[in-house]
């Protein structure tokens, strides 16, 4: 390639392993007899269950209502009966209240839903309301409610909408498959999102390891005014909101801020598809694409799964290998390791990754090689942060830039001493939060 691809500073080049499932078209996963829908599948206030044990529900019916503005409703992916409302193991490692639905297999939609319609005449406010009512959140993993992102903020006009098609996490291919299979829908979603926020510019950013997806999107975007399809360098974390914004526009987002602070909104590929589904077919967010992959499964694949599908059902179909010893929901860089397969798919589950013979690394002292400094996309000094967190120097932690760390994991990936830098930083942040809360309580007393 003779020209310089757009990118950001720092980052790493792990082996992407996207060949495992990359060529497998997205298959619809059959709805299981029992689904587990957590009331908390997003950032913000957990939803409040709107049903009780014994209630009959239709497909697409809201079973938990949003509480407050930064929240999202949860809808039933099947028709059936409520079996229970009880705490269940959640991918975060805690137990979270969940609505358990018994699937009656009839697949009956709630009246008025699942009907094709023309959305070209919808106003910006109507689009936001439709997206909110569909319970759409960021499907890349951060699960921030999409309608909140789209809501206008005083003094912050939005100029650019970015559809994040980087999919920089190794192994994951579900977004790639959606780019191939639903390129037109993604472009349509981008246009409607641009309309919702009044942005003149739209971007679709693809990493250069997906040239066929780039070609499809480029073809789909032809003739759409203001839409630009851009190829980015393959580098993790190219798909992080801040990095993709800086790569595309060459501007940095102020520390502690969001892309909206410089007039940009980023949406994940899956979110764009969900927005299209909601507006075009009046379908709430009840299913999502995910990749089951890793060297710990026999049959890597991309599935369109109903939310609430137990992860065990996915593993049964993908066939777990005997030497698989680590189960991760999400990608290998930022995904969450699970202690049990008795968790269910949430809105943020982009992948089910089974790793074989995963190691619990023994770690040693920092040898100051500086690789983490070169790799950190935030240009922090991770080695220093890891040392002050390890030695619990709370004053140093307070004076450090630790809150600028977004835990992307580049530092930990490259560390030759195998230091669990992300883990130590998480600990340091928690200690700092605890200290600040204590100080606040003390101040309130006096």
């Amino acid at each position, binding site marked *: 390639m003779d020209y310089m691809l757009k990118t950001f500073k720092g980052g790493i080049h792990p082996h992407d392993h996207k060949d495992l499932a990359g060529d497998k078209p997205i298959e619809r996963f059959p709805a299981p007899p029992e689904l587990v829908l957590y009331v908390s599948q997003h950032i913000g206030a957990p939803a409040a269950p709107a049903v009780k044990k014994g209630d009959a529900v239709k497909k697409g019916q809201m079973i938990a209502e949003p509480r407050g503005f930064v929240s999202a409703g949860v809808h039933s992916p099947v028709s059936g009966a409520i079996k229970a409302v009880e705490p269940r193991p959640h991918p975060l*490692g805690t137990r979270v209240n969940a609505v358990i639905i018994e699937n009656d297999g009839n697949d009956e939609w709630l009246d008025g839903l699942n009907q094709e319609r023309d959305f070209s005449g919808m106003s910006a406010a109507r689009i936001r309301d439709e997206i909110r009512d569909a319970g759409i959140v960021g499907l890349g993993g951060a699960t921030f409610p999409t309608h909140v992102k789209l809501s206008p903020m005083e003094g912050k006009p939005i100029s650019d909408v970015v559809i994040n098609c980087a999919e920089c996490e*190794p192994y994951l291919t579900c977004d790639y498959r959606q780019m191939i299979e639903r390129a037109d829908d993604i472009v349509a979603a981008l246009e409607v999102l641009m309309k919702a926020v009044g942005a003149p510019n739209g971007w679709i950013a693809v990493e250069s390891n997906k040239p066929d997806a780039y070609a499809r999107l480029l073809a789909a975007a032809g003739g759409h005014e203001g839409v630009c399809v851009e190829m980015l360098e393959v580098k993790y974390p190219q798909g992080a909101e801040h990095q993709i914004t800086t790569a595309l526009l060459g501007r940095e*987002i*102020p*520390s*502690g801020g969001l892309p909206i602070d410089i007039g940009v909104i980023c949406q994940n590929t899956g979110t764009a598809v969900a927005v299209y589904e909601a507006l075009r077919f009046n379908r709430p967010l009840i299913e999502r694409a995910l990749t089951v992959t890793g*060297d710990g499964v*026999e049959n890597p694949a991309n599935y369109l799964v109903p939310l609430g599908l137990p992860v*065990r059902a996915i*593993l*049964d179909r993908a*066939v*777990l*290998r*005997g*030497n*698989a*010893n*680590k*189960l*991760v929901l999400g990608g*290998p*860089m*930022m*995904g*969450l*390791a*699970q*202690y*049990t*397969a008795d968790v269910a798919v949430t809105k943020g589950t982009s992948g089910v990754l089974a790793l074989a013979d*995963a190691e*619990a*690394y023994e770690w*040693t*002292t*920092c*040898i*100051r*090689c*500086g690789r983490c*400094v*070169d790799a950190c*996309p*935030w*240009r*922090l*000094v991770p080695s220093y942060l890891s040392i002050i967190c390890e030695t619990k120097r709370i004053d140093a932690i307070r004076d450090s*830039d630790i809150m*600028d760390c977004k835990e992307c994991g580049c530092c*930990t*990936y*490259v560390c*030759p*001493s*195998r230091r*669990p830098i*992300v*883990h130590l930083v*998480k600990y340091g942040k928690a200690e700092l939060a605890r200290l600040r809360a204590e100080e606040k309580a003390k101040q309130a007393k006096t």
Partner: protein
Amino acid sequence: MSEEAKATEPASKKPVEPQEGFLVTTSPHIRSRDDISRIMWTVVVALLPALFTSCYFFGMAAAWIVMVSVVTAVAAEALVQKLTGRKVTVSDGSSVVTGLLVAFVMPSNAPWFIPLVASLFAIGIVKQAFGGLGYNIWNPALAGRAFAVACFAGLTIGGWGVNWVDVTPGQRFGNGHTRSETMTGASALSARKDYLKGLPKADAVTDATSINKEVLAELGATPRETLRKVQDANRTPLLDMFLGSQVGCVGETSALALLVGAVVLLATKTIKWYIPVCFLGTVALLGWLLPVSAPAFKDGALYSGLVWCGGEPLFEMLAGGVMLGAVFMATDMVTSPLSKTGKLVFGFGCGLLTVIIRKYGGYPEGVCYSILLMNTATPLIDSFTKPRVYGTKKR
């Protein structure tokens, strides 16, 4: 896919019961292949070409020094770790690297107890007493050499006069020296320095007629001409210096072998180019640029003047320990700065100090002390060259 998995027919495949008790850790769940021992053994491999050339030029003497030094370093590391109840980590190769580097900065005719003392000090005091790998402030090998120089005042090239291992005197190298001459002669740097020092000084002598005619003949009509004469009188062909046929320490003489090592380190991404290039570039530039004072004799008058831009850049890079220091010593991860800017500053500082010591200091060579001094400044450099955090204004 493992062989077993391939062998199993899909039809007969029974779903494995998902095991509970999965390994749970914080993300990320994948790591790069490079770990400490991989890095250290890569450095050992990169040092091998220089080891082979030193054995070729210095014979068994070099092999003995290397052996004593490496064995002492490894044994000292194991012993100290055992005594202090820490995990013995000699298999990570870092003490082998230190041992090799200590040997490489020993005079080729040093008696066996000198590398032993230097290695013991390097590992026992400089490295382990400060907390082991990652905690040392100074490059252990160079600190070991500095300690040995302080202990044994005669520890200069040729300072021991005789070889403690028999060398074959008959073999002649490119510069026409025999092996024993190469091992006991004066290095190119000290020869030039001593020669220049031995010339009459204008300020010390008022009457030029009192000076021996032959000595006056050694001076040029201008200070620059004198300097050129000094350079010509003490010249080893650059090709000989590049290949390694010159007087020097065990591992420092062959720039070619060291550059092969540098290529290994750069290709395996063990080191970045920042320090070596900045170090060598500074030595070449300032070695050429910075002035030296030289006497001259013209029209019956003896006078002296500063000669700017009179150095020989290639000579400066090939002579002494600069190549070894820039590629293997200054790039020591533990004792050099973290960020790119920091590394560039560090490399520049090493080069500047080296040239200053070479031109104006008491020693003919300054690589060892310049790196040690810059090691000391590393925390300071780190604090001044912290990268600007994404999304913040310049500090």
